[in-house]
């Protein structure tokens, strides 16, 4: 079963909440960029979660179950960047898509 836009695992609630705020609030984005560690502390992220966010490794985040739209916020939007063709090549995107059968 290939479900890509998955149910958000409860264990990622803190990361998801951080990403939600980044996704929707331009002022919050600026505050996050100014002092990422302070903001992550406010959201109660564990050391491991903080490392994951700071890594900006969207592929790893996806494989750990972080919700794709939150990944978009954490990896790109937080830094005013977009997944352009050049950017995604650098970061290991473009994984071969799942197999499927055309009816």
């Amino acid at each position: 079963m290939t479900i890509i836009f998955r149910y958000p695992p409860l264990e990622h609630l803190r990361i998801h909440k951080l990403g939600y705020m980044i996704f929707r609030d331009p002022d919050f984005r600026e505050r996050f960029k100014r002092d990422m560690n302070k903001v992550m502390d406010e959201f109660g992220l564990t050391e491991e979660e903080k490392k994951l966010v700071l890594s900006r490794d969207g592929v790893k985040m996806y494989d750990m179950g972080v919700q794709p739209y939150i990944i978009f916020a954490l990896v790109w939007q937080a830094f005013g960047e977009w997944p352009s063709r050049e950017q995604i090549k650098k970061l290991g995107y473009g994984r071969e898509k799942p197999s499927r059968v055309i009816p």
Partner: protein
Amino acid sequence: MAIVVGAAAGPHSPVVYQLPWEESEEYVREMEKVRECFKEIGRRINVLKPDVLLVFGADHVQTFWFGNFPQMMVFTGEAANYCVGGRRVLHLKNHHELAEELLFGLVEEEFDVGFSQEVDFFDHPFTTPLYWILQTCNVPDIRVIPFQLNTNVHPRVKLKRCYDLGQAVRRVLERSKRPERVFAIGTGGLSHFPGTPYYGNIDEEADRYILNMLERGKFRELCDLDYDWLDSTGNHELGTWIAAASCANAKSTEVLTYWTAWNNGYSVVWFRT
């Protein structure tokens, strides 16, 4: 009685609103064609003279949070801001009277739709198509009704349910004593994999299968597709298109454009009634 006078569908990517990175001349030219198709829909809407644009779209964890994430939600407030990435682009009046009729009528039809009377904003799933359609749509005093259909965070509303919802919307409107004319819009798609390691792929074969089925009016048959297939092909947002087509009782589809960009299969369609 209120009536559905037509329906259309198209993409909602923030990139369609405004290209945020440098691209080739070809990409820019093709993107402009997509926007032109939305403007063409705006011109066709002028001829139909609707009072309301009923927009089926899926929140991307921007309006709603996992503290409360509705499968179906109709906005019954007075007005709302429409943003892209949280930055305000439009402020639009809502047809809250008709939205309330939809809410009550749909629950009576056993669709347990939630409601919201106040949101901070709706984002690109609603803003992008409305922004371009309203460049040319000049029907005086036209109002909108955003209708959230969760197609983006699993578990999600199935395509069959989206089709049935469209039919129920039509029945509720036809039972109404209100005189409004409604134009439906589905937003999203076609193939794309935002926020995932699959981003940078599209699935042209799957997109063309869907478009071919739509052109032939095979809306019910498309409802056999499940989220396994839809996610595998990046077509997870198809339910919004099905809902719009269904509430207009579409017979077939005119594909105004289909473009295979490297990051998204972009298509704008007009549902023939």
